[in-house]
């Protein structure tokens, strides 16, 4: 386990639960900003920001509820945590095997399958957690549940950041 606190990752846990109730607001895209930064900044900076992404993904319930938008502040807040990264290469392997055939080669959406590249890592992780719990939340839930059940917490952390940032 390389990210955050496992307790916060359990589907249905109190730490994760509030995020489900937060309506999706695509105008609020802190992770899109983060993705742009990832492309530009140094490796050391990248680690810090990715950490921020991970913390927001998995510890982000209170963040989401409070509508905080400043990723820099979030990173500062978490600066005392051990520096970890998401594994984008591992994420790409999962993407090519499990996501691409339906969601498109750039996660741009295809056929009746929605775009992912325009979503935030938080949104992707939230949905994957729900699918992994076996809960049906849309017409293609059966497909998504079968994929999500195979994902570890680490896989979800990796793939969430990857699909939301790799194709910017």
């Amino acid at each position, binding site marked *: 386990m390389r990210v955050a606190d496992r307790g916060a990752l359990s589907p249905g846990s109190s730490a994760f639960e509030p995020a489900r109730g937060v309506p999706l607001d695509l105008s609020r895209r802190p992770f899109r900003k983060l993705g742009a930064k990832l492309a530009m900044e140094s490796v050391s900076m990248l680690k810090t920001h990715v950490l921020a992404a991970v913390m927001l993904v998995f510890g982000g319930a209170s963040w989401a509820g409070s509508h905080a938008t400043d990723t820099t502040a979030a990173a500062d807040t978490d600066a005392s945590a051990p520096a970890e990264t998401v594994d984008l290469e591992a994420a790409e392997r999962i993407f090519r*095997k499990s996501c691409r055939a339906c969601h498109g080669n750039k996660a741009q959406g295809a056929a009746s399958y929605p775009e992912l590249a325009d979503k935030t890592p938080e949104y992707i992780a939230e949905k994957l957690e729900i699918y992994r719990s076996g809960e049906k939340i849309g017409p293609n839930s059966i497909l998504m549940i079968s994929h999500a059940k195979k994902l570890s917490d680490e896989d979800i952390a990796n793939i969430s950041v990857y699909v939301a940032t790799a194709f910017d």
Partner: protein
Amino acid sequence: MLHATSFSALSLSAALLAGTAFLSVPAFAQNGLNTTSLQHEIVLDGLDNPWDMAFLEDGTMLFTEKCLGLSVRMPDGSVNALYGVGETEGYASNGADLFCEGQAGMMGVAFDPDFGENRRIYVYSTSNMSDPHTNRLMRFTLSEDFTSVSDRTDIVDDVPYKMAASDHPFGGPGAHNGGRVRFDANGHLFLTTGDTHNGEVPQSPTMMGSKVLRIDTDGTAIADNSPPDGFDPRTYTYGHRNIQGIAFHPETGAAITAEHGPWHSDEITILQNGGNAGWDPRPNMAGRGDCPDNYCGYSPNQEGGMNRYERAAFMPMTDFDTYPDAMPPIWNNNGWSQGTSSAAFLDGDAWGDWNGAMVVGIMGIGFGGTPIGQRIDVIQFNDDNTDVEDVTEMTLPMDTGRFRSVVMGPDGSLYTSIDEGTIYKLTPGG
């Protein structure tokens, strides 16, 4: 009885020829069939789910985008937006009743064989003009300057549409509309349709889903269509699942479909006038009990992967036990379903050994342990053109994608669109 006799003969010859093909494999391998070198060009990019294309001899290309509408790309590369879906902006005119939902929207397109004389084109799209909504085949007149369409006439207005979500994978509204629109060499218009996740549709004599319609350009049945008594006379074949590929053999003229299977058994089938493709996903028959929302199409174990042959035994794509005279598929994709979509025949010496072979676009699937399989297959027929002799995956000069459409261009190139938004031109040689 006529049908039964001809099907039996075909089955026998198919069995004999399958043996011949097997013995021939080493020789073909030495010939290196998969060595055709292809060049690729991006014709158009950044499209919204391009679904189908149609060409004139000068390279003029009609194309549809599922949620946007119909456009034409002129030989000089300029694009005119002709007829928009719903309120889509930027089109010369719009069909306010047209909409997209899930797999539904604007789909197949064709030029009239006499376009030079009558300026007519045909487009298939989902419409809310009727309740419940339907899929419609529309005929238009295209202006002399290729900038607008007029005279919309809905020559088919009653192909079923799935109104509500159901408890199935891919279970959203709008599922299984078929959608390909093609003319054969006789000038007959073929429209392929789908089962809309409704168990009653495929074998229904009157609901026009799961059919291949053969009609004239007014939408009237061709006189010698010979479905069983009581069937809608527009029916050329029935009992299909969701056909998105149809092409006509250049030598025999036979209509040949490429059809998307239910987690198993994508099928290529040589159609027989009046034939039954044998898909019948109703519950409480053929050894099955109840199924989710009265549709067994994804049963058993529709929420997880399982062996494809066990699936096929429970819910066959072609149910010979129930329908012994069903049209036998000549290819079943090794038992896999990987999103078989469209079909065309390669034409031109530049294609070498592949000249005259069928190509099938496969969109890929990411579920239940099935290999994804995004590719274009080259299907070579036997000398009698009654069976598949060899299948080769095309070595593509670009990345794969969801190959929704394959269409032979007038320039000897194969054009293919992927759902991701690109239309490619594939040219042999180089």
